[in-house]
């Protein structure tokens, strides 16, 4: 058995001023190549878990190890080149009042600048790269990102994060602000990219169909605790009804 890429140990998180904990003693291991679906209703702690993994919030107790090293021990630069989060809010991942090309250059800041200097013609390089994600983007180099459509913005975010594929990709309902058609397209495309680059990925969703169609493992959260875990075999056997049952209120006292 190979080593886990990400190991979550006894993780709890209680925000300041809140009496109940949002995450409660979570233990989980994610192995290289895993595509974990994180399922749970609103307020179950999905987003909080991803934020803690991504160092946007700090756990109250417990540890998270990335490649056997505590995430708090990474420098921001090292961490940024290994873990990327996409959320439904593109402002989290783009500079809205800068142009597409400027955003491309800034995305390279995540990496060592040498990678970029090796490119003879950066514009040409970006153009071919962006075309794989969205044909329009390459024609809008000098357009301000804020005037792109939601779908184009998300495609750009995905394209920029794939300039150098991260080890761990966290998808926090990144398509949920899009219309159903665009969302479906982007989700399929994301899955394809993940597969191509063999990226380890965690996807949060409350859409049961999505949960069934993608991923090899499934983790269900409710009230900040792990309510169920399914491995690859078990996940394949799941039906929509099984998942719906996970959503039932655990117990009403």
């Amino acid at each position: 058995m190979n080593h886990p890429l990400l190991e979550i140990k006894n993780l709890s998180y209680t925000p300041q001023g809140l009496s109940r904990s949002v995450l409660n003693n979570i233990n989980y291991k994610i192995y290289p190549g895993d595509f974990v679906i994180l399922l749970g209703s609103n307020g179950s702690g999905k987003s909080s878990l991803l934020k803690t993994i991504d160092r946007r919030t700090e756990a109250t107790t417990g540890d998270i190890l990335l490649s056997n090293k505590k995430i708090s021990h990474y420098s921001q630069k090292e961490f940024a080149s290994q873990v990327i989060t996409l959320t439904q809010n593109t402002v989290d991942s783009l500079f809205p009042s800068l142009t597409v090309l400027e955003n491309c250059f800034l995305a390279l800041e995540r990496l060592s600048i040498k990678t970029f200097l090796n490119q003879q013609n950066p514009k040409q390089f970006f153009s071919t790269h962006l075309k794989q994600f969205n044909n329009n983007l390459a024609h809008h180099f000098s357009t301000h990102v804020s005037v792109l459509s939601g779908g184009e913005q998300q495609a750009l975010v995905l394209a920029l994060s794939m300039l150098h594929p991260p080890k761990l990709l966290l998808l926090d309902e990144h398509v949920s602000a899009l219309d159903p058609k665009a969302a479906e397209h982007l989700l399929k495309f994301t899955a394809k990219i993940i597969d191509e680059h063999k990226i380890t990925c965690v996807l949060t969703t409350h859409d049961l169909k999505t949960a069934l169609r993608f991923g090899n493992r499934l983790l269900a959260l409710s009230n900040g605790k792990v309510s169920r875990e399914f491995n690859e075999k078990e996940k394949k056997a799941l039906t929509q009804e099984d998942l719906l049952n996970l959503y039932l209120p655990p117990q009403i006292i």
Partner: protein
Amino acid sequence: MFTAILSQLFPLLPLALAVYISFFILRATDLTLDGSFVLGAAVFAKMLELNYAPMLAGIAALTAGMLAGTGVALIQRKQKIDSLLAGILATFVLLSVNLLIMGRPNISLLAKVTLVSTGINASDLSVNILSGAYSSILCLGVCLILVTRYGLLLRAFGDNPNLLHRLGKNVETHRIGGFALTNSLAAASGCLTAQTIGYADIGMGFGLTLTALGAVILGQQLLQKLSPKHLLHGIQAFAVCLLGVAFYLLATNGLLRLNLNPIYLKMVLGLTLIMFLRTANICTTKRIYESPTT
């Protein structure tokens, strides 16, 4: 009137650029510029009084501005204090600092050899040419910085500091760099102004940041009318500042020529500016989040 405008235009240009950078690039409401303006004049005047070489005094003035900028950036560190409040606090502190440096409310430079006086025969024209040269070189130099990778990082800092942090960049060093840049520009402006008017005064910076902001916004509107095409960032900054300050000075000098009582001057200009902004419908920070309605 033309020489009067010219003699005011060049000393104010660095301040306008400082305001442009702090409001439109760093997106901070930095009122410290008022204080740094006086600081530049104060340091320069005091050093001349102590018989230092004018060039050295000028460099000291710029350095003092940089230090003031670093200070105000440190006050805001980790977003603990809002930039507006930090600016007010810093100006407050600088009022004492400036008095301490000067030792009295004003220092005359009329009898001194300055950077703009040729030493022998300082005519209006030579003063204007020299102050114009200093100011243009400085401003163009800063505009050049704006088109480099560092300039891009400064704009990224203003646009989305959180994301800049997530890219592994140190946000605080960019904050300090940006504020040091703008405040040293303001100090340069104060230094040049003191030399052209012949004295440094503790109250000479009052309200200047807002005046310069007005000028810069005017300049932006004018530039949009003249050349709607997108210019390279550095050139645009320079053009906006030059147009804005020139137009502002033209308006004030024109109004004074029309025998307007100077008491009404700021009020008339303020009201004109408000009308201008209402019709132009620009909003400096919120506009970027609006989706196009057409």
